């Protein structure tokens, strides 16, 4: 073992900043990070064992105990649950004779919960040793288990359940892209590889930044910061060494548009990164790819190689003397908060993904403390079309505050879940007609951290100035239990994913979730609703990053728009209800000491 670990460490030049890559390799080899490996890594990288361990324990896909030769990670998102996850869980547990979140005694198969894996349009879905299995049923689970017991590899396992495999050879996958509506900016047939990059290098970097500024292109990752301005700030930092980072962490439950771009249009993305590199003077670009999308890694690497061969990456790109730029892919290891740009940078440096204090902003002090532009996948792709067609053309789409088009990942209760490229401003009603969503009780926009609205607001439009979204739209039909199936699931998600730095994020969300449970269990009173609402509003101003600032949104926005659902559950005429039950509370202790419970009083 020592030797293989040594080799891994050498492969990454004993670079402390590559700890993530080292750990990913070792986890894959041993299905966990053995204690001995921790010592060797610490020793070789010149850091303490605690440094290694704190990184390991931060990420969902690093473990200190084995997760099984076949590690099954079943998505636990709200949409997975309404699409029949319980049946799949049951099938796994029955067939294997173990509860979820444990490993069979022979160490062969482990079954684990995991947060949204970006497959909301084909749930229930799971990752098995990094390969995605979609549209699972109890029947398929049985076949998969037989296959795993027979020692089949991933390709064979997919065949066991008769999966229709899509994509080029390096990307044989069950994952469907479900592009339902193409748009002028993305998925237009007009894209020609390298055209925009050649246009860009015929202009000065400042002219490129100005063109992007003029287009009013705003970040597509959620926050909507103007891309051109961000690039300008980075230029103003005047760093010798600067970086372009593409945020492909796509962790917001219900979002999967970056996945589709990465599979369908990787060249468009890499070209966008090269243009950004030219504009800000970077030599290195890094794609931070969420671990859940690891199945694309080889394929993406091959595309990068192709672009190098076309001289669209590498040295003196497209014949422009002195324009050197290349891209590497950095895998994450399962942590939603790493989508936050400063946490992402920490993670790229091999640390726990804890957000940094801002300022300084990444454009001042980013990756390796150098000025860094972090942009979403879709933002960087849009840049290519801005350069090709010009800012005016781009602005002719959308609304005044939100120019261009937007990729929406639509899922939940509708006939045609998938990807829709729409112009900003499109109304919810229109989306419902296009996707075949009927009897809609609520729409969750922007994922759990966004807002939940009811039918009286379906005439509102998707735009930064109205309903802002990084891309997730989830339709929720009337038959669903909005509070239990969605709000509770979302709160559990945030509790699980909080990095734990800020007290209020770490504790208040648990308190809110428990109060919600109290109401769901029928033990709430009206005062509980008012307190929930009041307390939920606190997180926005006292937490460091967007996670903690928006974690209570599921509760806040459903109390605002669906208060009657809460009122139906609470005991309106009582001032207090206790869920305490003496009989069950004393049962165990009486049994252990060997006495009869005395419940007479």
């Amino acid at each position, binding site marked *: 073992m020592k030797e293989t670990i040594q080799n891994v460490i050498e492969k990454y030049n004993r670079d402390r900043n590559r700890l993530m890559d080292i750990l990913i390799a070792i986890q894959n080899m041993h299905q966990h990070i053995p204690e001995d490996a921790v010592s060797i890594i610490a020793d070789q990288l010149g850091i303490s064992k605690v440094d290694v361990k704190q990184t390991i324990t931060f990420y969902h896909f690093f473990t200190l105990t084995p997760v099984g030769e076949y590690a099954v990670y079943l998505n636990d998102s709200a949409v997975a649950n309404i699409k029949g996850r319980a049946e799949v869980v049951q099938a796994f547990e029955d067939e294997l004779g173990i509860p979820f979140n444990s490993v069979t005694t022979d160490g062969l198969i482990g079954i684990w919960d995991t947060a949204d894996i970006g497959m909301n349009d084909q749930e229930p879905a799971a990752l098995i040793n990094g390969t995605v299995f979609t549209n699972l049923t109890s029947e398929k689970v049985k076949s998969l288990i037989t296959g795993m017991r027979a020692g089949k590899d991933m390709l064979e396992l997919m065949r066991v359940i008769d999966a229709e495999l899509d994509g080029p050879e390096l990307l044989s996958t069950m994952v469907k892209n479900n592009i339902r509506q193409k748009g002028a900016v993305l998925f237009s047939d007009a894209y020609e590889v390298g055209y925009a990059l050649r246009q860009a290098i015929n202009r000065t970097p400042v002219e490129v930044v100005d063109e992007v500024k003029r287009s009013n292109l705003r970040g597509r990752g959620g926050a909507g910061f103007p891309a051109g301005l961000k690039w300008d700030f980075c230029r103003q930092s005047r760093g010798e060494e600067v970086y372009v980072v593409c945020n492909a962490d796509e962790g917001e439950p219900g979002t999967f548009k970056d996945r589709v771009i990465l599979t369908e249009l990787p060249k468009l993305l890499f070209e966008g990164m090269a243009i950004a590199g030219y504009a800000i003077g970077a030599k290195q670009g890094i794609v931070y790819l969420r671990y859940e999308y690891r199945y694309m890694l080889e394929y993406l690497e091959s595309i990068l190689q192709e672009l190098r061969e076309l001289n669209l990456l590498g040295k003196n790109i497209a014949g422009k003397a002195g324009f050197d730029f290349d891209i590497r892919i950095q895998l994450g290891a399962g942590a939603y908060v790493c989508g936050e740009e400063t946490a992402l940078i920490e993670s790229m440096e091999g640390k726990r993904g804890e957000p940094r204090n801002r300022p300084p902003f990444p454009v001042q002090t980013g990756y390796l403390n150098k000025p860094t532009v972090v942009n979403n996948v879709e933002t960087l792709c849009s840049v290519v079309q801005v350069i090709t067609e010009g800012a005016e053309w781009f602005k002719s789409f959308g609304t005044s505050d939100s120019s261009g088009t937007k990729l929406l990942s639509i899922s939940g209760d509708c006939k045609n879940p998938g990807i829709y490229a729409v112009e900003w401003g499109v109304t919810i009603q229109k989306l419902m007609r296009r996707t075949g969503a009927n009897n809609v009780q609520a729409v969750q926009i922007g994922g759990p951290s966004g807002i939940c609205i009811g039918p009286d607001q379906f005439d509102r439009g998707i735009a930064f100035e109205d309903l802002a979204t990084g891309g997730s739209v989830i339709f929720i039909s009337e038959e669903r239990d909005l509070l239990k199936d969605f709000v509770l699931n979302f709160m559990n998600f945030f509790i699980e994913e909080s990095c734990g730095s800020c007290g209020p994020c770490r504790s208040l969300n648990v308190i809110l979730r428990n109060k919600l449970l109290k109401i769901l269990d029928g033990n709430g009173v009206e005062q509980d609703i008012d307190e929930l609402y009041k307390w939920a509003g606190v997180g926005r101003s006292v937490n460091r990053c967007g996670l903690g600032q928006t974690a209570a949104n599921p509760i806040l926005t459903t109390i605002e728009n669906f208060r009657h659902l809460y009122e139906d559950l609470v005991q309106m005429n009582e*001032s*207090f209800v*206790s*869920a*305490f039950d*003496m009989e*069950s*509370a*004393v*049962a*165990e*202790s*009486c049994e*252990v*000491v*060997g*006495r*009869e*419970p*005395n419940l007479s*009083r």
Partner: protein
Amino acid sequence: MSKKILATTSLAGCFGCHMSFLDIDERILELIELVEFNKSPIDDIKTFTKECDIGLIEGGCCNSENIEVLKEFRKHCKILVSVGECAIMGGLPALRNGISIKECLEEAYLNGPTVGENTEKIMPNDPELPMLLDKVYPCHEIVKIDYFLPGCAPRADLIWNALVALVTGNELELPYEVVKFD
């Protein structure tokens, strides 16, 4: 104005909150001008002899007796106040909440390093004893609590200010020094 009647108790607490209460020092003389004590360790009245205006609760609920006492307090006091971390959140005793009750009892009576000879492996099981609960509960999960005074222990000034406000009906004074915890 007739005096308000005050009761206090320590449930699963360490008596630190009561000690902090006594830290009001000579103001206790002012206090007895304002209130009359009923059931409380301070005057050692063991059962309620009157209906009370204010009940101060230290500690959460770890056994059946705590529950009974707390319910008694709710019955006899117009206003109930959770005083200190243990009453509000379970506090230190609630550290056992992540451990099974079986493991706790075995550690305390059979396996712990300070256990002497216990060859018969006896654990306290006299029917007179209170029964342990599966976990330590904060008071507001058992009965309605009207006010919460945070701290471990809350400062004497906070307890004092709160009592004066409750008795006089004036607004509670909460200067920063009184609620800062470190």
